[in-house]
Structures are given as structure tokens and as C-alpha cells.
């Protein structure tokens, strides 16, 4: 994983509440056994017509959408299925952060593991940001993970919460598994005192 650095970017607004992971990446694209090619399938059923041609009016098909590294979404983004293909598709398209008033739990966790930053801001700030982008589609924000600070187009800034461990992993560009594997002594100790439950290998 690459280190997550501070960046400034335009926004792609998608002001719809409860955007579920079936919209982010429809289930029929989940038959793949790799992670490749998912960026082209991002928001597929909103983005392409029945013949599979890109809809020219859909923001992510336009040059200004292509330039955006920040998605500005409605409330409860990423609800539904646990598919990690959703953050894979978003990052492959080029997004590095999603701004919303809240995120579904599983999506938030999956995003953080893929260096996609879920940024929660208060509803009032979210409204202002939507209005700012509507007034000037070229408006930019600056995302500073180290300071947990989002600088808005008018120069003011808001702070956002982020799990401190996930933040360190993203800033250092490491994944969680390395840390978990270093806990081997504790895991083995737990297994010794743990009561036996099942043995899936015991079947006749």
C-alpha cells in the first residue's frame, strides 16, 4: 500500500442518501477471482446505458468527474453487502476519499483497509459543501489525514474523526495483517485456555 499523503482535489457530488454497495459495484461483477478491472464497472448501472455505452451526462463519465479524487455522497454511504469490491472499484477509478454525513460500518472498515478515507462531516457543513460545488464545480477541498482536517472551498476547515490505528496504517502505508501476525504469542496463549467448540474436520 502507498502512504496516504495530503492532497487537494475537486469533488464529484452524488447527493443521494443510502447509496448501497450494489450500486457502487453490481453483484454480477463479483464473479471475478481477482481485483482487476473493477474501476470501469464502478456505478455501472448508473453510468452506462442498456447497450453498455457510457451515459454522457453521468458525472463520472465527464472529464471533470475524472479529475475528482473525492466523492461527495449522501448519508449512510456504502450500506448493504459487505463486498470489498466496492472500495476496490472506487480506488481503481481514482477516488482517495469519500465525504458523507455517515458511512455503513462494514464499508467504512473495508475502505480504511484500502487507503480510501471515509470522511464524516456534520450535516450543516455537508449542505454547505454541496452548495459550494453546485455554485462552482471546480471548487476544491484539501484532505489532511495527519491533522484529520478537511479544508473547504471557502478556506475554512472542519476536523473529522478517524480510528487512530487505521490512520497510522494509512499514513505509514502498511496493512493490519502484519500487526495481527505479530500477536502470535497472545493468540497461541488464548488458544491454549480456550474451550473446545467445534472441529469442522471431524465430520464422518
Amino acid at each position, binding site marked *: 500500500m502507498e502512504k496516504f499523503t495530503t492532497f487537494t482535489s475537486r469533488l464529484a457530488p452524488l447527493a443521494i*442518501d443510502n447509496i448501497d454497495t450494489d450500486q457502487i459495484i453490481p453483484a454480477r461483477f463479483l*464473479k471475478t477471482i481477482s481485483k482487476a478491472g473493477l474501476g470501469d464497472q464502478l456505478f455501472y448501472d448508473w453510468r452506462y446505458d442498456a447497450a453498455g455505452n457510457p451515459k454522457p451526462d453521468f458525472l463520472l463519465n465527464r472529464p471533470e468527474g475524472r479529475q475528482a479524487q473525492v466523492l461527495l455522497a449522501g448519508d449512510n454511504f456504502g450500506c448493504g453487502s459487505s463486498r470489498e469490491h466496492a472500495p476496490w472499484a472506487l480506488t481503481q477509478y481514482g477516488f482517495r476519499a469519500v465525504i458523507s454525513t455517515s458511512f455503513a460500518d462494514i464499508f467504512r472498515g473495508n475502505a480504511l483497509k484500502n487507503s480510501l478515507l471515509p470522511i464524516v462531516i456534520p450535516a450543516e457543513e455537508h449542505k454547505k459543501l454541496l452548495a459550494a460545488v453546485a455554485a462552482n464545480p471546480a471548487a476544491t477541498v484539501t484532505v489532511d489525514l495527519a491533522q484529520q482536517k478537511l479544508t473547504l472551498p471557502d478556506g475554512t476547515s472542519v476536523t473529522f474523526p478517524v480510528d487512530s490505528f487505521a490512520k497510522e496504517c494509512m499514513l505509514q502505508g502498511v496493512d493490519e495483517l502484519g500487526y495481527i*501476525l505479530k500477536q502470535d504469542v*497472545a493468540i497461541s496463549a488464548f488458544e491454549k485456555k480456550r474451550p473446545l467448540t467445534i472441529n469442522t474436520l471431524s465430520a464422518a
Partner: protein
Amino acid sequence: MRGVKRTRRFGVVRTMAKTIIQKVWDRHIVAENPGAPALLYIDLHLVHEVTSPQAFSGLRERGLKVRRPDLTFGTTDHSIPTHDRSLPIVDKVAETQITQFEKNCRDFGIPYYGPHSAKQGIVHIIGPEQGLTQPGMTVVCGDSHTATHGAFGALAFGIGTSQVEHVLASQCLLQTPSKSYEVRVDGKLKDGVGAKDIILNLISRIGIGGGTGCVFEYTGSAIRALSMEERMTICNMSIEGGARAGMIAPDDTTYQYLSGRQYAPKGAEWDRAVAEWRTLPSDEGAKYDKRIDIDASALEPMITFGTNPGMGIPITAAVPDPDSVKDPVERDTLGKALRYMDLPSGKPLLGHPINVVFIGSCTNSRISDLRAAAEILKGRRVNPKVRVMVVPGSQQIKQQAQAEGLDRIFKEAGADWREAGCSMCIAMNGDQLQPGEYSVSTSNRNFEGRQGKGGRTFLASPLTAAASAITGVVTDVRTLLG
């Protein structure tokens, strides 16, 4: 630590009343290091073909083994066809995924039910069916409906593929504790109203994000009165209310269900296990972060009208009007949903024509669901304009249904009796709606395109689905009950 010792020395051990959520959490903490989330041990890891391939690739890249294949179990369910299993899989991409899954399980020593196993089925059906799911366990799977297993008093939740890899490699997950949310359901359900209606009612009240950050515990007399299969229907859709997990404390109903199942403890082990399980229910006076009350006796059959499971109404109620919603984004979201569904607001769905009825999914494909549907379909014919698919949750359920003659009832009524799998709930395997078609479906999600691109889903109970199959329109099952 010093404080704890002191209280013990003076003989005043502080007894903090705990919820079942806290108890199961506390019993699985492997390590709590400063600056990191808790390391939680996982008792049962279920894997399937769709969300695991990239995790196995990750293991291979790092040269890692599966730490505990004896706590891991696999099945093929999502992309598997539900037609005759002796036929080849037409979709080569799906076939590759299934073949790769079987190879991954063999290479890493994980037991699994392949496409031709007599025990194959939907991952959340077979866990309980085989007695793998037990009270007090932590259960995970790369699937959001893992919440189903909470019906046994297990802490069960869906994870992404990165975490599938973490659990395969270490049997552990980094987790922060959730808030607790008591969903108290008291009173007696009326005829024609069931578990599906309870959960759809909850989600319609709190919204699809209402339980975000929380684990539900379902309590109350109406929950106690439910069978295990009905409890699973409720816990299954916890995620549709935003909660990663939903739990029901175990009781004699739970133990009766589990007793004698393949992986359930036997003999003296069983007695020890039950004694342990009896310590799980939430203590008297335990505090929850949130609470909601539902009066079961006031519930009607529920149905969804929109494009998320929170957009649900009692079947006789009118579809809401976007103009009555104040918040502009909420108003647009509702308006967009009704345009997608091509539905007018202000009147009930009753009488709305449908094209397909799907009875199946990890929500409602168990034997009691099939019996309920068969009760309505018995001696009747489905409307000739409607395609009706009945997809059992597992091959064992299929066998049992056939032993009871339910398959004959479905076939004589004109319904299609299929092999086990996720089928039209997720529409990955060729079972899908055509653009513009309407279904009444017993599954769990009505998102845009969920059952096939351009398809439109009304979520409801098996009773409502069966009743609508006969009439060809959205129907209140109570009009067909004796």
C-alpha cells in the same frame, strides 16, 4: 488492575450487569494493546466462492497457511446455478470462480460442500443446519447476512475480503466494540403476520442506517415465542437496519434445535456446553445504549415499495409522497426510488401487477418458510402471468421438503422447484428479473438492480409472496386465509 484486587480483598466484587453482547465480546479478547483496536478471537469462519478468492491469493503471496482449518468451513452458494446440478455451468466466469474455490479449500485443508454435495446450501443456512453455529461463539463470513447466526446468541457479523484474509491467517480480527441496541418485541402476532413482518417493521421505523455502529439484541415475549428458523429470519436482516450483528439470547428452543446436529456437542460435552450457554443471556438490569419497543399484536403484513429495505409499509398503507418530506436530499432519494419503481405515491401497493415471485434466500428458504408457502399454494394454481421460483436454502431442506410432499404442491401449483443457492436474491447465477419486471420476493434487499438490472423488488414474507403468486398482484394474504 490494582483497583480490581483491592475490591476483591475487601470482599466487594463489583458486579456489573452485562448484556449478552458484552459477555460474548469479553470472552473473545485475545489482546488489548494501547493504540490498537481489540484483537478478537473467531470461533467459526464460514467462506464462500465470491468474497474469498482474493483473500486466498493474499495468503499465497505472503506464503501463509490457514491457521485453523478446523474452525473454518466452506460452501458454494452465490454464483452456483439452481438448475439441475448434473448439467454443466454455462457461465464460464462463474464456473472458474467455483472451481477456484474448491481448489483453494483443498490446497489450504478447509472442509467444504461443493456443488454436488448432498449438504450444499446457502452459507447462513448450512451453519445452523449442521450445528456449526452455537451460542456464545464469534462467527464471521465475508457476507453481510452473517448476522443470521446471532439467532443462537452468537456474535456474528459480515466482513470484507481483507478481513477474510486476516481470519484465515490468524483466526483473529481487529475490532472496536459496538454500541448495544435493545429491540424489544412484546405481544402476540396476529394470523398472517410473522417474523419477516417484525424485522421489516423495525427497519421501516429506524431506517436503513438506524442501527449503524450498533449490535441489536432482540428481546421480549414475541421473540421468545418464535422458533429458531423465525429468529434467524429476524437476525438475518439486522444489517438492513444498519447493525452489523443482531443477537437473541439462547433458551430451550435454541438447545432443542441444536441437539443432535452433526457438529453439536454430544454426551457429557453437551451438558457442559448447555451449562455454559445458560450463562449467556443478558443480566437483569444490563444497560443498553439505545432501545426501541415494538408491539407485535399491532403489526400487519409488511411490504417494501422502494429501493432500500427501510422503505416499507403495512400492506394496506399508502406509498408515501415525496412532497411531504422536508429534507431535500431525503425527498430526492424517495422521489428517485419511486421513479425507479415506476410507482405512484398516495395509494397502497395492493392490486399492483407482478411478473415474478421468488421464495428463497438466507432470509426465508428454510423448511418452515416452504411449509408456509405450500399451505397457501396447496390446491391452487399460480397466476399464469407470474413466474414463480421456489429455491430451498440447502439440499437437506430440499430433501426434507420432498419427503413432506411440498415439492409436489409447488409443482402442481405451477411453481418452479429448484436446487439450493442464493439464486435471485443476488442474481449472480442467471436467476434474475428482466428490466422493468416486478417481483414479490422473500429475500432481504430491494436495491436497484439487486434481482437483475432494471428489476423492481417488493420484499415480503413467504405468505405474502405465495398469496401474490396466486392472484398475480400484490395481495394481502389474510384475504386467502381460512
